[in-house]
């Protein structure tokens, strides 16, 4: 009983002391704690500084991780965009070529077909296209490139088509000089030439450009075929032969334009 009274008494004393201190030092707050802080603050200040350093270190670490992740994400995005850019550039180039063909060679452009294979047997010069019957390709359709005539479709499957090129020995194309009158027929002369025969009255000289003409009627008129390299007289001067180099480099073709047949 006595101990309980003492305990309560002590409590009361301390509470009153606290209230009294609070009331008395209220005008001095916060000057008094500030003045006494050199005595009380060093150890908490050490803890505080350590905490700040730990926090800064963890933030730096987290930021670094963020930057790393962001960098990775941006790299992936960049790679994606570069791929897309390449694809679009190729698409633009393809469309530009198609446009050039449409503008310069024929309005009857049917399709732009990828070249997926080439016959390099040495005797035949044929190209395999990645489009076929289901894409509207038919036998007899002329095939061109922006540089000039490529050949003629001679076989069609559902998804592939075979092109007999200008330099194929079975190929014949009616040609005419760009700058003068006269008609002739050019046959393929593998591996990379055409041999054109003209009447002796046609004026030809090396460097002349030959265009498709009407005689065989398979190709639209006016498509560039090749340039004359050499001219020779044959059969006692009754004919003249011209060795012609095609304008199209078949080995570099990646895409060709397929035209509607005449």
């Amino acid at each position, binding site marked *: 009983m006595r101990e309980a009274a003492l305990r309560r008494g002590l409590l009361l004393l*301390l509470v009153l002391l606290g209230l009294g201190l609070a009331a008395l030092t209220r005008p001095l707050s916060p000057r008094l704690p500030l003045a006494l802080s050199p005595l*009380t603050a060093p150890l908490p200040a050490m803890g505080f500084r350590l905490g700040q350093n730990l926090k800064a270190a963890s933030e730096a670490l987290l930021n670094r991780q963020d930057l790393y992740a962001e960098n990775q994400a941006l790299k992936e995005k960049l790679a994606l965009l570069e791929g897309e850019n390449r694809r679009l550039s190729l698409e633009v180039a393809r469309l530009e070529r198609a446009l050039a063909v449409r503008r310069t060679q024929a309005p009857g452009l049917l399709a732009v077909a990828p070249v997926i294979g080439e016959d390099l047997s040495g005797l035949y010069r044929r190209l395999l296209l990645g489009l076929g019957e289901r894409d509207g390709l038919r036998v007899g359709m002329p095939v061109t490139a922006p540089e000039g005539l490529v050949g003629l479709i001679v076989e069609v499957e559902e998804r592939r088509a075979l092109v007999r090129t200008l330099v194929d020995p079975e190929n014949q194309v009616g040609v005419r000089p760009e700058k003068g009158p006269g008609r002739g027929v050019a046959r393929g002369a593998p591996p990379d030439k055409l041999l054109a025969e003209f009447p002796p009255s046609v004026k030809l000289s090396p460097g002349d450009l030959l265009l498709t003409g009407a005689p065989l009627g398979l190709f639209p008129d006016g498509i560039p075929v090749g340039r004359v390299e050499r001219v020779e007289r044959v059969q006692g001067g009754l004919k003249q032969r011209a060795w012609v180099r095609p304008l199209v480099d078949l080995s570099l073709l990646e895409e060709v334009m397929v035209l509607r047949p005449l």
Partner: protein
Amino acid sequence: MKPLLALLLTLFLSGLLAALWPQGVMAPDLFLVLALWYAAGRPYYLGLPAAFLLGLLQDLLGFGLLGLHGVGLTLAAYAYYAASRRLAQGESLPALVAFLWAFLAKWTGYFLVAYWLRLDIPPLLPLDLLLEGLLTLPFFLLARRFGP
């Protein structure tokens, strides 16, 4: 020696927590833990004045009103003594109840000083008080394991 080390550790940890603790969240009251740890197993005539002095130290460190925490921790220690006498010793549940009782007494002390000085009561939400109690409790249980 042990109480002095505990005091130094409390001072250091309070500074550390102040830097690391997220803004706007009630931090655990390590001085309350220290006051209760010291009071446990010691007579009231040591525990109560020690709690009062610890409170004053807390006031000084917080650059606040002298006596606010002093009164709060004194009442907390008194409530802890009262609860400990009535509850079975050495078990977890009574220790939890004693802590809760002391925690409420501490805040009663704060409000008493605030009322005494006609201070504006800060807009504390009950959730904040509950959070402070929940965050302080693990430290209190940890301190109990080391013994008084």
